[in-house]
């Protein structure tokens, strides 16, 4: 593993932005005295300080006089939460199914791969919309649904890697020596496919962020009084031409976060596996 100094400039900037985003999500609320729900009808549509606003509301206010900085900090927190838990659920669930499919073969394999086929033939946002039409939206439901996005990619990748690793000499030797199945998986197969999972993690994370923000932007994701970056954009849409900062600031945060994670992921993939250097990225 190389040190921070050896990384390309773009990767260093990207890592810097991700750290900045996490810090903003965790502590951004302390930058402003206002609560993200606190309305003030006297301070509606205040511009940011660099567009003639006051230091009272550094990034201005929205249509109900709510402080945009406080709302962005809260939205970033929700996005971070959904991104981390959402990506973890998919990674654990998908990798586990991939391990089972690749390790046990037979009926389990056929069943799991069929589920992968079904999932791959419907975009996750369509499934999410279907579920949201049937059940009441909540933060937990959003996290779970976002979590299942991309599980099929983990399952497919981990299955393929497991199939190739389990036939290697040292794994066969372990099995002959009487190691339990659990030991073989944890001690030999999992470390071998860890890189694959890690790279997939960086590809999947931007997709989970984009899914959650898209749902909230459509007004079907995170519901008020809770907020998210997508919901802030959706709120500010009607005033796009007069108060553009209400949509452009949260949009830019989402974009730069997804971009930074993608750049780090691309670089990580090159570092971990030179043979993958020119492989195309799969679509959603």
């Amino acid at each position, binding site marked *: 593993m190389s040190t921070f100094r050896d990384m390309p400039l773009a990767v260093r900037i990207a890592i810097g932005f991700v750290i900045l985003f996490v810090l903003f999500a965790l502590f951004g609320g302390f930058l402003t005295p206002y609560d993200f729900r606190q309305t003030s009808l006297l301070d509606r549509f205040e511009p940011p300080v660099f567009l003639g606003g006051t230091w009272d509301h550094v990034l201005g206010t929205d249509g109900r006089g709510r402080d945009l900085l406080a709302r962005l900090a809260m939205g970033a927190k929700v996005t971070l939460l959904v991104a981390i838990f959402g990506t973890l659920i998919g990674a654990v669930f998908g990798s586990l199914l991939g391990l089972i499919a690749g390790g046990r073969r037979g009926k389990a394999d056929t069943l799991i791969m069929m589920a992968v086929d079904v999932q791959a033939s*419907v975009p996750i946002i*369509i499934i999410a919309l*279907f579920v949201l039409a049937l059940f009441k939206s909540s933060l937990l439901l959003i996290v779970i649904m976002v979590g299942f996005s991309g599980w099929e990619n983990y399952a497919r990748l981990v299955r393929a890697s497991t199939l190739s690793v389990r036939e290697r000499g040292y794994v066969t030797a372990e099995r002959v020596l009487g190691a339990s199945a659990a030991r073989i998986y944890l001690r030999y197969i999992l470390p071998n496919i860890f890189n694959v999972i890690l790279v997939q993690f960086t590809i999947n994370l931007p997709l989970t962020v984009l899914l959650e923000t898209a749902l909230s932007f459509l007004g079907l994701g995170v519901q008020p009084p809770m907020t998210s970056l997508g919901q802030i954009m959706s709120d500010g849409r009607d005033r796009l031409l007069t108060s553009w900062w209400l949509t452009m600031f949260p949009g830019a945060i989402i974009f730069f976060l*997804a971009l930074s994670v*993608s750049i780090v992921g691309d670089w990580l993939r090159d570092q971990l596996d030179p043979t993958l250097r020119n492989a195309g990225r799969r679509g959603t």
Partner: protein
Amino acid sequence: MTRVILFRILRSLATLLIAVTIVFFFIRLSGDPAQALAPPDAPPEVVEAYRVKLGLDKPLPVQYANYVLGLFQGDFGYSIHTGKSSLTLFLERLPATLMLGGTALAIAVIFGISIGAIAALNRNSFIDRLVMGFSVFAFAMPNFFFGLVVILTGALVFGIFFGAAANGHISLLLLLPPAATLGLASMGAFARFTRSSLLETINQPFMMALEARGVPASRRLWRHAAPNAAIPIVTMLGLSLGSLVAGAVVTEQVFAWPGVGQLLVRSVATRDIAVVQFLVLAVTFSMTFANLAVDILYSFLDPRIRRAAS
């Protein structure tokens, strides 16, 4: 060959059946449709009458069989708000979405493949890095954000408001901005995929052999490299369809485009379950068949698969 295709068709049918089954059980899981349809203060007898009318008093397997039979007979349910059939609502909206999606796909294919090929032929140059940078940019850009940037730029710089297709008036000027927004992500994917596919082909031994025999560069590229590199790109077509469908839902909302995506979002917001389930099944059906078509096309294009199968 025929056996492989037959097997593939059977698999697609199985996929569809599983999707239909999942949709059925999710709807039953979500609550009692009779309770939802009846007025809130309706006496129990009325709710019971609704239940009998809808066939909900029968055992679950019978309900399931009726549901699947109904789908085969074209009974896709009616909107609880407008009373129109789901199919009619869908067909009303389809032309606008096909126009948007088709234009977006054309933009993505034409520009994506061109810049990907240019990048591959100028490997490690400034242009190559620019194209690769663009493809990462396109992957990370949320289409609702990009769409709003396009609308804002159009209004501030050109004085034209792009987000106004709502009154059903569709023109080329109003079509291009949403189509470009929708096609952006796929364009990046096509560029990346074309680049890696062409690079892989160019570095094959047979390309070196052609060069050694003195075949001119342009003939090597168009006659030998391009057809070989094109085969994997066909798979990309199938994959990009999913991102186009998903993107259309959001893009139509941003530009007030009167398409199927807008209908879906509106139906979800108003909990018009009959319409939502039909649209979900319609997307699943069309995507499964599109992927099937791509697979069959692929096996015809690649002589290795064609021969291995026979």
